[in-house]
């Protein structure tokens, strides 16, 4: 009887001893696999940063300009080609001159899509773009005639006012011989002016010039912030009690 109980205990011990490492091995395998995935995702993100970076040659060419404050050199990828191909939100097609990142979803100032630059992407955010022609980036300052309207424009604080400006920008309009719109076609070697109003994020006047376009459709631009406005706030209109 005692021998039978001892035998049962030994069998139970062997069974437990056999199962425990198997369960541990499974979770260890998952942990190892997760680490491999995380390492590869990290490597992919680094490679994407390399892919997004302008070439060393372009950086050298603009080294003196880039030593000034509020300047930069970036690459925009065409949205229609790279959307969902990169881990970065927006596929490298967007850029924020305020946050200095391509990541979409937290306020962006410019987008490249179908050979067009655009501004104004979410909520009541809006902006105006104008092409100033084949001029050097150093020549596009606040004194440029195309910058006058953009530098004196006052961002509305009421939502209907912002929505009106969105519609106005979508239709396009002329001031002093310059056409302002929320999207403009890409033209090689041309410079542009941009006023981008991102409510609760930033309000900037930026000059940029196209440096190169690569065979993959990506465009390298050199840019400078000409003016920073106070961060705009939006008052959302409430329905009046009488209308409820």
């Amino acid at each position, binding site marked *: 009887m005692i021998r039978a109980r001892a035998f049962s205990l030994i069998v139970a011990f062997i069974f437990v001893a056999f199962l425990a490492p198997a369960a541990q091995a499974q979770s260890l395998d998952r*942990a190892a696999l997760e680490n491999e*995935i995380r390492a590869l*995702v990290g*490597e992919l993100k680094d490679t994407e940063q390399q892919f997004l970076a302008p070439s060393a040659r372009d950086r050298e060419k603009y080294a003196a300009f880039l030593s000034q404050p509020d300047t930069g050199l970036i690459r925009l990828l065409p949205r229609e080609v790279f959307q969902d191909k990169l881990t970065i939100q927006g596929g490298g097609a967007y850029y924020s001159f305020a946050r200095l990142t391509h990541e979409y979803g937290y306020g962006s100032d410019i987008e490249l899509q179908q050979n067009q630059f655009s501004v104004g992407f979410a909520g009541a955010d809006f902006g105006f773009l104008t092409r100033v022609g084949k001029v050097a980036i150093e020549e596009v300052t606040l004194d440029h005639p195309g910058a006058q309207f953009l530098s004196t424009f006052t961002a509305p604080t009421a939502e209907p006012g912002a929505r009106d400006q969105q519609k106005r920008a979508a239709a396009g309009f002329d001031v002093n011989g310059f056409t302002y719109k929320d999207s403009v076609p890409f033209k090689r070697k041309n410079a542009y002016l941009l006023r981008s109003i991102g409510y609760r994020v930033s309000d900037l006047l930026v000059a940029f010039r196209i440096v190169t376009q690569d065979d993959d459709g990506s465009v390298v631009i050199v840019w400078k912030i000409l003016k920073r406005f106070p961060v705009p706030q939006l008052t959302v209109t409430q329905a009046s009690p009488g209308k409820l």
Partner: protein
Amino acid sequence: MLPSRWFISFLVSIFVFGISIGASAQLQDRSAVQAKMESLRAQIQAKERVFLAPSAEDLAAFAGFLRQPDTGMARLMPRETYDGKLLIRGGGAYYSFARLTNEYGFGSDIALEQGQLRVGFAGADFGFLTSLGDVAIDSVTAEHPGVSYLAEFKTPSAETDAREQYRRAGTGFEVGGFAYRSVLSANLNTTYALRSVDYGVSDLLVAFRVTRQDSDGSLTLVWTILKKFPVPQLAQ
């Protein structure tokens, strides 16, 4: 003395040749970087498929059940830990019983987040979840008292009615002693019934059981589709 025309042509040729070599090298560099990105993505996707698959042990344990049509096994990752950490959209936290994938963004029926199971994620989509307790998955049919309400529910086609059902599911309600909600606690060894209404995609009645929770917080579900309803359309 001015340099000869031949010498100037020679210099120009060297200049153009140099530029074209430089441009070509840059192009090759970008192509190589792009190829590396594509290769890394393929490697990650292959590993993620393994990571998201249920264990061989669990598949073997339910082999008999899984031979039946409209059954399957899926793993849900906790969204708060894995969303943005994996390449797959939604971080493996979602599953579509209609499309048989964890990928979010094209219609999903269930999600795991903060220890809770959820249904109804986009637009006017909604759904109801109820817990049937610790019952075997193969014993659950559309006639089960907790399932019959879900089987008979008529999907609204008007958006206002769909939004009303969404709110109703958010608050929760009781029918025949069973509580229905869009969010329920995820419990091990518990079987659930789910009606998931996904406009323009699918409308399904599913029973599933949580068979395992791994140390990474992921849950393994074994499931069966009890009923497929016509694909619902939303009248605006």
